[in-house]
């Protein structure tokens, strides 16, 4: 299938202090082609697309767009050339409405009223309805993504870059998005699709370029390869699936009932009558699309938000009205999603970060005075047991890579030998090897008799390690069901189907 080449990259390189983000990258995207850029976290995908979008300039190499030299100095030049981008994060403004958000991403937006009309028109034309006057902060994750997509489509792009678009979507929403993307490709728009989700790439993309440590390690037609082959090209080695010894679950260790709490943030989701039980040795996976109350649930369980005493119980003892340290004393340890700034203080050393949550259970203080040698020894133990790559425990947390810091954070909690451990997004943004390591460590903790709760937006992760699955949807938690034999369609329905897509649920748009 010969297509005209739209965008060609030749020998693109970019070096940051200490990291070669891209090394001699060469590939091309055909007109009307859906082209996958596949790679692990840290493989250099983001840097590469930022160069195509004009946010970063390459150190070396050249790009051509429709055979003409292409070197955008800023995003507006890229947009003028017909390149548009849907970001994974950080490009929407919560306190502004949809139309204003769209206008900000355009170089010559029409007057607001006209723009609102075009937003309605285009969004319905592609099966992604949107109300231009709503505040973006009030939208679901899927709707927020639609704002970004519409922003791009209004400018008639020749190339649409999509960075990890499905990480915030339910399976039904993914199906709708794929319908839109196929429609766009059929109209002649090229799509550069960045992802590490192999099945999606196999289902959607015409061609794939695989990056590893900044270099192109292969190109292929994804439909002709198995997911396993793709994974091995991406990771460069064979990965072991995590395993555990089968064991009968013990008595109930963590019990949550009737937990209702208002969100502390203006655009947050309130928790509504949440209840579940986790037994010793059991892993409960809580799935859900971002923004459905995960952060609030985590705060309520860790003790950062207080609830009525009996709403949270450990071994039958109410701890809902206590703070984090009381709960740690009672045997409950937690690891929040955001590593830098929440689970760890970026500018503090690993030793100080060890004290951050382990002070109580590891008795690192005496009458309020800190035992620094003991704290340092604990940090060193975490570093060596969890294989954290760092020059030493005096290093600031921000100097560690995402995977290494996550191993440190998880290790810090697990080595306190908690009876209940709750983690939120334990492998988000972490490379495959570290993710496998972390999942194994959680399973090991469960086999030693701990009750484990994994809150995750990655359904594959939950299916891999959890015994039971519950879905968090608009602040409500479904009744947990065993993961064995659970189908993707069933999970999708539990996650709330297609959020805010009610108008679009006509038969013409559902491809699943």
């Amino acid at each position, binding site marked *: 299938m010969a297509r005209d080449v739209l965008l060609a990259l030749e020998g693109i390189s970019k070096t940051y202090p200490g990291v070669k983000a891209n090394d001699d990258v060469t590939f091309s995207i055909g007109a009307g082609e859906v082209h996958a850029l596949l790679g692990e976290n840290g493989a250099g995908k983001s840097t590469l697309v930022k160069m195509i979008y004009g946010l*970063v300039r390459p150190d070396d190499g050249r790009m051509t767009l429709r055979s003409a030299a292409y070197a955008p100095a800023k995003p507006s030049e890229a947009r003028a050339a017909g390149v548009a981008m849907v970001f994974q994060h950080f490009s*929407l*403004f919560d306190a502004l409405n949809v139309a204003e958000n769209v206008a*900000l991403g355009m170089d010559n937006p029409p007057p607001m009223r006209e723009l609102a009309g075009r937003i309605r028109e285009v969004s319905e034309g592609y099966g992604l309805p949107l109300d231009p006057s709503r505040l973006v902060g009030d939208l679901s994750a899927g709707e927020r993504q639609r704002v970004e997509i519409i922003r791009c489509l209004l400018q008639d792009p020749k190339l649409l870059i999509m960075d990890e678009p499905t990480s915030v979507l339910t399976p039904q929403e993914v199906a709708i998005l794929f319908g839109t993307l196929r429609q766009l490709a059929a109209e002649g728009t090229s799509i550069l699709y960045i992802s590490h989700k192999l099945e999606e790439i196999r289902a959607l993309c015409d061609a794939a370029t695989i990056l590893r440590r900044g270099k192109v390690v292969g190109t292929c037609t994804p439909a002709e390869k198995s997911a396993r082959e793709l994974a091995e090209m991406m990771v460069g080695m064979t990965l072991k699936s995590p395993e555990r010894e089968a064991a009968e679950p013990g008595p109930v260790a963590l019990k949550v009932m009737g937990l209702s709490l208002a969100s502390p943030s*203006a655009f947050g989701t309130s928790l509504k009558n949440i209840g579940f039980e986790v037994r010793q040795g059991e892993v409960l996976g809580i799935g859900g699309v971002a923004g459905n109350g995960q952060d609030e649930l985590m705060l309520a369980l860790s003790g950062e938000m207080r609830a009525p005493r009996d709403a949270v119980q450990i071994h039958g003892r109410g701890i809902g009205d206590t703070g984090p340290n009381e709960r740690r004393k009672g045997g409950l340890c937690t690891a929040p999603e955001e590593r830098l700034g929440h689970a760890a203080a970026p500018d503090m050393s690993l030793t100080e970060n060890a004290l951050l949550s382990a002070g109580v259970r590891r008795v690192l203080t005496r009458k309020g005075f800190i035992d620094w040698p003991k704290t340092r020894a604990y940090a060193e133990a975490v570093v060596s047991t969890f294989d954290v790559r760092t020059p030493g425990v005096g290093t600031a947390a921000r100097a560690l890579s995402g995977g290494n810091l996550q191993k440190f954070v998880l290790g810090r909690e697990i080595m306190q030998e908690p009876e209940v451990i709750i983690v939120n997004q334990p492998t988000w943004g972490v490379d495959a090897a570290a993710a496998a390591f972390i999942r194994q460590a959680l399973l090991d903790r469960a086999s030693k008799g701990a009750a484990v709760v994994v809150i995750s937006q990655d359904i594959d992760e939950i299916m891999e390690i959890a015994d039971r699955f519950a879905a968090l949807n608009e602040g409500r938690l479904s009744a947990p069901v065993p993961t064995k034999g659970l189908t993707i369609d069933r999970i999708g329905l539990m996650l709330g189907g297609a959020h805010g897509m009610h108008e679009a649920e006509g038969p013409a748009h559902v491809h699943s």
Partner: protein
Amino acid sequence: MDFGSINPVILIASLMVAAVPIMLAAVGELVVEKSGVLNLGVEGMMVMGAICGFITAVETGSPFLGFLGGAAGGAGLSLVFALLTQVFLANQVATGLALTLFGLGLSALMGQGYNGIKPPLTPDVPFGPLAQIPALGPILFAHDWVVYFSVAVIAVTWWVLKATRLGLIIRAVGESHDAAHALGYKVNRIRLGCITFGGAMAGMGGAYVSLVRVPQWVDGITAGAGWIALAIVVFASWRPWRVLIGAYLFGGITVLQLNLQAAGSAIPVEYLSMSPYLITIIVLVIMSSGKGRAALNAPAVLGQNFHAAR
């Protein structure tokens, strides 16, 4: 005590004059804060504007040039703030405080030899017979041009922030500098512009104190007006027209307590003169305790510095 000596028409007319310095400074700071920057140096910029305006007016004989000089003085000092916070990423709170301490010192230094001089008079705008209308005349048509200018600045600021692309970009930068950067906006340059505008407005407000309100030069002439302007921005929950209301309210309190002092009120003078500060505190408490959607007007990244990492 004689309340009868307090004429409501004159009271309203004079509160409009009393409100000008804080109104200008507050609307400038509002724009700065909308772009996500917290400049606590308003007091320093005002006092610099007061002395620069005073010197310019005395030396040139033109009060109009005096106000320009005041704006330039305030803007000049704000550029120091911009350099430190936008280029060298210094802490905004500390830099703002430094600006105030430095401005108070520098203005005192520059003002040596200007004590006891009268500046040239800023005349009222001649509205002719309109000024003779009973009640409305003295309130609406008997002021110098800066009084009208300050209201115009409020109106223009409101319109720019609400209805123009520039305003949208300023709000976006203050809402999420990361997102704005990802879309290709030059966050620090936009903030630099807002900081300079804020400095110019504060400087003009300061010049109004030394050229019209007092009118002469004494060290530390602004006496906390800059801090009240900061409080008014909170009071106004970042809405321009509410700045006008807030400034008139505080102007009213200031004028009223002076009138009460003159009228020989039973309330001791000291308590009257601390009343603007106490009322500021009370208003802050009332405005801050309201939670929920009203808080959305507060720029989300207020006070945080931006560094484009990669």
